[in-house]
C-alpha cells in the first residue's frame, strides 16, 4: 500500500533533503505533501489522507510542537505517526516531544539515521537486509 507522507519544515532545502531520503528508503511512496509551518501542515492533514508526518519544531506562524498538540487532540488524526526532525537539544524539551511523537531525529542527521527512524515507525524492512537503498538508477558519477 502506498504511503502518503507530510513533510513540515520552513526550509525548502531541508524539505528536499528529507524527500530525497524518503525516495531512497525503498518505501512504497504515494503522495508527498509539503508544508512550511504547523498551520499549513494542519491544513494539509484536513485535505489529504496522510500516513506519516515528519515535522520540524522551530517554525514561524505555528511551530511543530503546537501542531503536534493540535493533531493529538483531533480524534480522526490523533494516532498519526509523527517523527520530529529538529535541532532541539534540551533534555526536558526532547523528552516532552518524545512523549507526543513516535520518533525524534536530531539535526544534523545522516540520511541513514532518518531512514532508521522512519523504518522503526513504519516497520517492515529489517536493518541490514533486503536490497540496496536507491531509486536513483543513473547518478552523475555511477
Amino acid at each position, binding site marked *: 500500500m502506498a504511503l502518503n507522507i507530510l513533510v513540515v519544515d*520552513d*526550509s*525548502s*532545502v*531541508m524539505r*528536499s*533533503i528529507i524527500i*530525497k531520503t524518503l525516495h531512497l528508503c525503498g518505501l512504497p511512496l504515494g503522495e508527498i505533501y509539503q508544508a512550511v509551518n504547523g498551520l499549513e501542515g494542519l491544513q494539509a492533514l484536513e485535505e489529504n489522507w496522510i500516513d506519516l508526518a515528519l515535522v520540524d519544531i*522551530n*517554525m*514561524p506562524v505555528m511551530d511543530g510542537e503546537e501542531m503536534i498538540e493540535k493533531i493529538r487532540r483531533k480524534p480522526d488524526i490523533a494516532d498519526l505517526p509523527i517523527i520530529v526532525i*529538529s*535541532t*532541539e*537539544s*534540551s*533534555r*526536558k*524539551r*526532547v523528552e516532552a516531544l518524545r512523549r507526543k511523537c513516535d520518533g525524534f531525529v536530531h*539535526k*544534523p542527521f*545522516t540520511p541513514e539515521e532518518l531512514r532508521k527512524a522512519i523504518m522503526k515507525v513504519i516497520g517492515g524492512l529489517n536493518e541490514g537486509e533486503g536490497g540496496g537503498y536507491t531509486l536513483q538508477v543513473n547518478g*552523475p558519477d555511477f
Partner: protein
Amino acid sequence: MKEKVEDILYRSTVRIFEDIAFMLPNMELNEQQMGASVEVAVAVDFCGPFNGKLVVRISNSLLPILAANMLGEGEPPCRSEQLDALREVANIICGNLLPALTGTKEVFRLSAPSLISSREPLDHPNDIPVAEARIGIDEGRVEVVLFIEDKEVDR
C-alpha cells in the same frame, strides 16, 4: 573562558559544514581565503538563559557549492535555494552550539534565520561579540560570530 567558547564555536561550525555540506575546511586559512570577501550573511536570534544572536557570513563563491552538496545535486540550485541552504546551516550551527556551551539542561528558543547585510553595522548596544570563528574552504571563507546580550557565558 573566551578561548573555550571560541573553540566550541569553531568546532561546531566545522562539524556542520562537514556533516551536512560535505565541505572540507582548511586547518588554517591560506592567503586567498584570508583575502576573500564574505558577501552574504544570515543571523539567528535566540533567547533562553541568555539571549543573543549567531551571525554566519560566507563568501559568495561558496554558496552554490554549499547548496548543491546539501541537496546532493550536480548543479547548484537557484539563488533563493542557496540562501535557504545558508539559513538552514546557520539554524543547525546555532541549535548545536548553544547546548555545547551550556549543556542539555537549558532551553533555548531560536528564531527563524534571516538574511542580513554582511556589512550591517551591528551597533545595537547589546550586540557584543563574545566569540568569532573563521574557517577557510576552497577559495572562500566562512565567519561565524556569536553575540550575547549579557556575559553570562563567560562565567
